[in-house]
């Protein structure tokens, strides 16, 4: 199943907890600081450079773990996904 | 003589130590001094600040409503203090972490690349003493000896080993400032 998350970089406090729970290694700490002075987490799409980074499944582990409710999770509805099952 | 200085930045930057060392120096010079750290909930969110008053007379209030000098180590601190500084006062900012310049024109703004200088010195954590050395050189608040002695007082006991590097940092900050002033 295919998913995606949106991280509210101004709400994020860079605690890093989401990173530790993401089974697909789709999250990393970004370089630019936010208004509050934190280095927020950022979503990471899979790419060749980093083989361990897999496709986000929308499992929501990160969002469940995020203290600051900074993460929203999106997932393909059943049908969509099936039509793209073997991407 | 009677002046008020505000030091501000976030936790890791050793902001309180800057004020603490300066206040100790003032004490050793037999001045009246007060040192007031921000406390309690104020501190939440990792910002730290303190106010030092040094005077020949008894000090009424340790709070700096209109400080002569402000030392800001990060951007939030700039926003908080730029408008507080007294007219004709000086604002020292850590140019490594602060891109923008304050709007005000009635104060002197002095930029110091504290992180860079600290890195050059080979000790990133020494940026606070570099900043203090520079500030002191610019404003001639205390003698070099007084500051060095203060560092010893402040770091006595377990932290003894750190005295030297911090004194070096004071010196480096001072050199940088003097060279800048010459340049000007």
């Amino acid at each position: 199943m295919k998913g995606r998350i949106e991280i509210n970089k101004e709400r994020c406090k860079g605690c890093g907890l989401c990173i530790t729970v993401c089974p697909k290694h789709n999250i990393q700490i970004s370089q630019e600081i936010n208004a509050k002075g934190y280095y927020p987490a950022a979503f990471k799409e899979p790419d060749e450079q980093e083989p361990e980074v897999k496709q986000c499944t929308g499992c929501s582990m990160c969002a469940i773990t995020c203290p600051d409710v900074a993460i929203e999770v999106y997932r393909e509805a059943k049908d969509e996904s099936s039509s793209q099952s073997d991407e | 003589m009677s002046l008020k200085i505000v030091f501000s930045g976030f936790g890791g930057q050793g902001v309180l130590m800057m004020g603490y060392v300066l206040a100790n120096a003032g004490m050793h010079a037999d001045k009246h001094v007060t040192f007031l750290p921000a406390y309690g909930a104020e501190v939440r969110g990792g910002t730290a600040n303190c106010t030092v008053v040094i005077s020949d007379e008894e000090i009424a209030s340790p709070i700096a409503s209109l400080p002569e000098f402000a030392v800001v180590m990060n951007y939030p601190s700039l926003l908080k203090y730029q408008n507080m500084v007294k007219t004709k006062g000086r604002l020292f900012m850590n140019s490594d972490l602060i891109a923008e310049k304050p709007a005000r024109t009635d104060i002197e703004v002095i930029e110091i690349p504290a992180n860079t200088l600290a890195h050059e010195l080979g000790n990133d954590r020494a940026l606070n003493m570099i900043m203090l050395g520079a500030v002191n050189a610019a404003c001639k608040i205390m003698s070099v000896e007084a500051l060095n002695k203060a560092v010893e007082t402040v770091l006595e006991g377990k932290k003894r080993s750190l005295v030297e590097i911090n004194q070096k940092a004071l010196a480096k900050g001072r050199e940088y400032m003097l060279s800048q002033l010459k340049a000007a």
Partner: protein
Amino acid sequence: MAGKVLMRGTHVLGEAAIRAGCRAYFGYPITPQNELPEYMAAQFAKMDDAVFLQAESELASINMVMGAAMAGARAMTSSSSPGISLKQEGISYIAAMELPAVIVNMMRGGPGLGNIAPSQGDYFQATRGGGHGDYRVIVLAPAYGQEICDMTRNAFELADKYRNPVMILGDGMMGQMMEPVVFPEPIDPKSLPYKEFTLDGAKGRPKRLIRSLLLDMAMEEELNWRLVRKYEAISREIVDQEMYMVDDAELVIVAYGTAARIAKGGVHRARKMGLKVGLFRPKTLWPYPYEALAALSRSVKKIVVFEMSTGQMVEDVKLAVEGRCPVTFYGRPGGIVSTPEEIARTLTSAYHTMQTLGTAGAA
């Protein structure tokens, strides 16, 4: 060690207490005085004859102090406004049992939970006994780091001498601010005289009893009058104040603690403007320096009372002045710390309206 050291008020108080022979601290955390218990915890951990105990509450702390005092120790507790309210029953008992104890209140903004900023809203509670019954607590109000040190030493001496609770009344700023301090030589608790009331086991002597229950009304009345006589003696013997530039003053500002040092700054600035103003600073809030202030009220034209509250000490000022001159009030409650400039302005306007309307209108 003679030399000056730069320390924050709470630490100065703690160090001075230890040097006064205090070896028993019981308390409960509350901002803005946590650095005091933290200091005691750190220091006492290094000593084998000292007790630091973080109690389960302020109630427990004050009652532990009661017990420690019964056992003969120089004992203390500290807290801030809401916590001090919870100690009132215990303080009433300690006063009734005539036990020595030192209580520190670093006042914060109130009422209720309020905030943690410096304030002086607990004056009534401290000087009028927030607890039940006729009793008095000696109240010392330091305004400078060195004074915190000296008054703390004195607090333990007075507590033992008069067998009475003594309160050191400061505020968040007093507690947090660092100033240079010179400490006195430490007292070895073992060198202190044995207290005859000490509960340490009825060995080779009749049993001792410490109580406050006096079901017989005549006995209770007798205790009450005995306390009154003691309080009268205290009032004669320890009342203290600072008078600054009052000799030629036509207008005097009355303030204590943090407010007083700011007021002094205001007086400075006003003097520079040529105004004949002075400062009257009570150092003991109970007993209150009524006589000295009464005398002053005969020579000045007007008195301004400044408190970091909506007006409490102003009543003591009026009790001293008895209408001899107008008494006005200027207050900033809720944690606001005025500037010397602000006080200077207040003094100036008060000075100019002095001749004109001048009745004792307090906020």
